[in-house]
Structure formats: C-alpha cells, structure tokens
C-alpha cells in the first residue's frame, strides 16, 4: 500500500503550498474593507490571510466541528449498537427514517426552522450539525457489526463469551474499520456544513466567506473558502491516519509491520 502511504505525505504538503500561495496573494491587497474583514488590527496597512479575524473564525469552526463530532460519536455509535441488538424492523425503520430525513433535509432549512422555533440559542447550530452528521456514523456502526462473520460469533459464544463480551471483544473490534470510515465521512460533512452556522450567528469560517460576499471582496471570500477546504482536507487526513493505526492489527492488509 505504498500509494496510500504516499498520499499521507502529499496531502499536508499540498495544504501547506495552498496556504502559502494564499498568504502571498492576500498580502498584496491594500483595500481597507478587505483588511478590516480579515483582521481586527486597526493599524494594519495591508491584508493578511492569517489575520486575527480569520484565526478566530478558524478556531470557532474547529470548535463547532469538534463538539458536534463528539456528540455524534456519543449518540451515533450506541444508537448503531442498539439497532443491531433489536430484531424489530419497526424500531430500526423509525430510527433510520428520522436520520435519513435529517440528512436529506438541507441543513440551512433545519437551522432556520430550529431558530424559528427555539430562537437564537447557542445549542441550535450544534443540534442541526449533529442531526446531519450522525447518520453515517450510526449506519456504519450497524454495517460494521452486521458484517462480522456469524461463524465467528458462534465460535465465540461456544467458547463461553457472554453477550456483552461478544459485543465488546468480538463485534466492536472487528467493526472498528467500518465505524472509523463512518466517522471520517461525518467529520468531512461537519467541516462543510459548519460554514452555514454563520447564518444563525454562530461564527466559523462561514463568517469570512459571508463578509466577502456581502462586501464584494473576492480576496476575503477566497480566504474563507480556502481555509474551510484546507481544514476539511486536514481533518480527512487525520482520520485516514487514525483509520490506519486504530484498526486492529490482525485485520490490516499489510504484513505485521
């Protein structure tokens, strides 16, 4: 899998190059509105892609993604496990239906709807993001567990593993690669959809993009967009590393390294 390994090195390099280019290009901007959109420093004479407003927005964005992701894990994985414990089609159908609808509905619509009902509460953007991103995690947890060879479960039961031990020592470890893939999908989705949080005043890189659009400053818009993209790519990269090293060794394709 040298291709995979090469990918792991190339991705951060590309991100660094992209951010470097962005820095150079934005540094040439002297327009006052552009400068003010990117940094809070009032004495600045030229724009900077890494201005304080940008870094603040980036941190907010990471916070939005991080907290939502944590909730997604805490909700999605147990829910997925519960779904595999029940043979009831009704329960499975209802839960799946809710989250399918959650993902199918446009996030912006869900956001607006929630704000209309509950007002501009802090938790509203998180609720929308979680509703949107929980599905891949839950579905992959179910898939991962269902894909475990029934013969293995039978052998484990026959050895005297209790039901809980079968879950924690056999099913979950073997489902880890599939669950991790679901988490990776969810994270990338979250980085993208968190840009919409700006519409309910929750900050994030969406603020920068939105400022750029409103003020018709392309440089500002591009800065926000490039940062959002870079963040998505880097999080995907981290998740790929996690997938590689958190998957049980005995399951990995490569020989025991």
């Amino acid at each position, binding site marked *: 899998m040298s291709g995979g390994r090469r990918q792991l090195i190339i991705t951060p390099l590309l991100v660094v190059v992209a951010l470097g280019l962005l820095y150079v290009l934005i540094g040439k901007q002297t327009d006052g509105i552009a400068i003010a959109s990117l940094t809070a420093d009032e004495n600045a004479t030229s724009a900077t892609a890494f201005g304080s407003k940008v870094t603040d927005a980036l941190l907010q964005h990471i916070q939005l993604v991080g907290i939502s992701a944590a909730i997604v894990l805490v909700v999605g994985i147990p829910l997925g496990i519960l779904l595999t414990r029940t043979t009831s089609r009704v329960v499975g159908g209802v839960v799946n239906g809710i989250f399918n609808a959650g993902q199918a509905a446009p996030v912006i619509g869900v956001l607006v709807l929630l704000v209309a009902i509950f007002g501009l509460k802090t938790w509203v953007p998180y609720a929308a993001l979680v509703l949107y991103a929980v599905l891949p995690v839950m579905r992959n947890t179910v898939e991962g567990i269902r894909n475990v060879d029934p*013969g*293995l479960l039978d*052998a*484990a039961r*026959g050895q*005297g593993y209790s039901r809980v031990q079968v879950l924690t020592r056999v099913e979950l470890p073997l489902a880890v690669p599939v669950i991790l893939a679901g988490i990776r999908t969810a994270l990338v989705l979250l980085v993208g959809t968190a840009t919409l949080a700006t519409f309910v005043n929750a900050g994030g890189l969406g603020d920068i993009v939105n400022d750029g659009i409103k003020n018709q400053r392309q440089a500002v818009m591009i800065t926000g967009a490039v940062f959002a993209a870079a963040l998505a790519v880097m999080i995907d990269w981290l998740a790929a590393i996690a997938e590689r090293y958190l998957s049980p060794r005995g*399951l990995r394709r490569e*020989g025991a390294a």
Partner: protein
Amino acid sequence: MSSTESTTSSRRELREAMAAGTAVEIDLQAVTKQFPGSGAPAVEEFSLTIPAGEIVVFVGPSGCGKTTTMRMINRLVRPTSGRILIGGADAAKMKTDDLRRRIGYVVQQAGLLPHLTVRQNIESVPRLLKWKSGRIDERSSELFELVGLDEEEFANRYPRELSGGQQQRVGVARALAADPPILLMDEPFGALDPITRDRLQSELLKIQRRVRKTIVFVTHDIDEAIKLGDRVVVLRERSRIAQQGPPDEILANPSDRYVRSFIGGGAAVKRLHLVRVEDLELERYPAFTEPEGYDEILRQLGETGYDYALLLDNHQRPQRWLHRDELQDRPGRPDLEGQAVQGVVMATTTLHDAMDEMLSSGTGVVPAVDDRGAYIGTVRLDQVTDALDEIHVTAVAEQEDAAPVQTLAEITGELDSRELQAAQKLLDDERAAREQAATEREAEGA
C-alpha cells in the same frame, strides 16, 4: 444419573467433575428440537449415552440434524424437550456461559478471532475464567507443544498469516485451553485439503491418548468417522439413529440399506482404517547410526538374514537404506550411499495410510517411528495385505449376506504393478542423481 438429586448438589458435582478436567459421561435423553416455523422437528427424541473418555462420531448427510444435536450439548441450541445430563447433572440448570467455558468447541474453518494473535486466541477461555497469568503462560506453552506448533514462531502471529491446517491446530489448542472434560468438534477438518486433514486426524488421535476427553465429533465423511470414532453413530433425517456401535461392527454388519449405502463401496479397504501400525508385530531391520562399526552391522545382517540395514541420524530418525553389498564396500560416507528413506509412518498411523505411504514412496517397506520420529520398526506391504485378509475373513464370517467386498487379489494385484513401477522409477532417479554427482565431482577435481 439419578434425577432425584437436588439441583444444588448436582450442580456442585458437575462443577467439580468439570473443573478437574477428567472426562465425564454425556447422557442425552429423548432430546427434541423443533425450530419455530418449520414443520418436522430438526431432532426427534434423540437418546444416546456418550461414555466418558471416548470419541463418539455423529455421521450423516448434511441437514440430518447431527450438528443441531451436538450444539444442544453446549446449549448453542436449546432443546425443545428432553434432558441432557453431563456427568449426571442437568446441563439446563447450569449457567450457560459457565457450561460453555468448560466444554471445548472446535468449528469448521477454526473460527479464530482475526484481531487477536494466536496466543491471545488460545488464552481466551482461561482469561474468561480469570486464571492467574502464570498459570495461563504455563498452559499455553503446554498447548503449543500438544498441537505441534512452535510457540516462538507462532504465538504472535495473526490467524490470517496461518495456513488452514495451522489455524485448525490453534482451534484445537483453544478448545483444550481450559482443560475441559468435553470437546465438541463440528466438522473441524472439513475444509482442509486431504493430506492436511489426514495428518490432523492422526494428531487428534495422538492428542486424545494424552488428554482422554469425551469427544463428540460431527462429520458427513464416513471414512473420517471410521478412522476417529471409538463409536460411530450413523444418523438419518431428524437425527434419528440408523445404527450405532464400534466402527468395525458397523462396517461388518450394516443394519439396513441406508447404512450400507452410506458406507459405500470398498468396505474392506475402509477397515484398514481400524488397524494401526502399532497393532502389528513390527519387524526390526538392523539399524545403525554412523559411528557404529560396519562389522557389527554386517554381523547383524548375517544373523537376521536381512539384506538391508537402516542408517539413523543422531536422533534415531531413519535416513537411508543400505544394502549388504554397499556396506561390505565400507563406504566412507554412508549418508551418501544407498537409498534415501522416502517416507515413514507413525505408530498411530492406520494401515490404510501406511499402505498409501508405501504406494507413494514406491517401496514395499516403510520404517515406523514414534512421536519424536525415532525408529521403532518397519512395516511391510505383505503385513498390510495379511491384515486385510484377516479383516476380509472375519467380515464374511460375521456377515451372512455380505455386501460384495473387493477381493484381496484385486487389491494386491493393483498394488504390485503400481509399486513396481514406482520402485523402478525411484531407482532410475537415484542412479541418475548419483551419476550426475560423480560427474560434478570429477569436473571439480579437474
């Protein structure tokens, strides 16, 4: 087996018996399994006593309920009605997980956990039973040795890095790990190639001599049943017993057409599965290790009247056959003279396999060795055919309407021509190799 015992005392008894690792009897009493939604029961009123320390093989066509019957013993399938007594205690009254931890379970394809190393797989049940780590280490070393895997080489490998045969060795080691009194084996060798299957069957018998468990073995292969079973239980649909008894009895007196058709043709040859090399009176060709004097070995050859002597290595393992004439020439390097030993048989090898070995090695004589590979004697082809003769005679005597048995002449006739061809080819190859070696030596010298 009194059913009047109080639950507590029977449970304690069971736990004690099973903890000690000594084999226990299994008594199935009118056990029935009716799967919901299916018409006929999968297992109907199955009653059988499985004696402690014996291998009982359930054999029957697929779908006959043999696996379901076995799986009711460790309650992977719950009986609809009937009782199963293990060591006299009702299995239904024991905690299921405890029961299973004390019954070894081997499945087809081994069923090893792929994310655990070989060592972790083997140690899984002792860990479930919360053994102390020192005891676990000691036990797993024993097990590696028992199933013939090198601990250092295999302990930290993952199952997918092992061949099918090696995986199943680990499967057997795992099942034996907590020293359970009972072993359930569900077509464990079904997915292996014939050579590996054969070897593992022989090793199972070897292991069984050491551990003496009560083994319930399920297979659809009548040859496997005959080779392994102390008792064979032939099943028909709904797990009804068509016939049960020692394998030779079943081969000699199939109770009806069903059993006869299940045994199939070649019953006489199959009976060679029942006699082992150690049951024969082994001959002893004179054997020597290198440092021994040639005079001594020649004297022995003269005394015994044999023409060939066997060269052994330092571990007493047979290496080469040397003819009297070759010894008389006093070769400096006896390890380069004569014929390399092509194959050996173990004491526990069946005559069927021994015959196979002779045919494939192309010699009418093979050395027999013990567990460690040390020479214990030799088996000659005519000993095998004599045994076949004896079996044939008893089979005819026991059986009034004897099914047509392949005659001895047919078998030996076949052997002779094949053996001669093979032996001829072997000699030709040997000579060619020797000539080539000589040419090379000359070339080097020049």
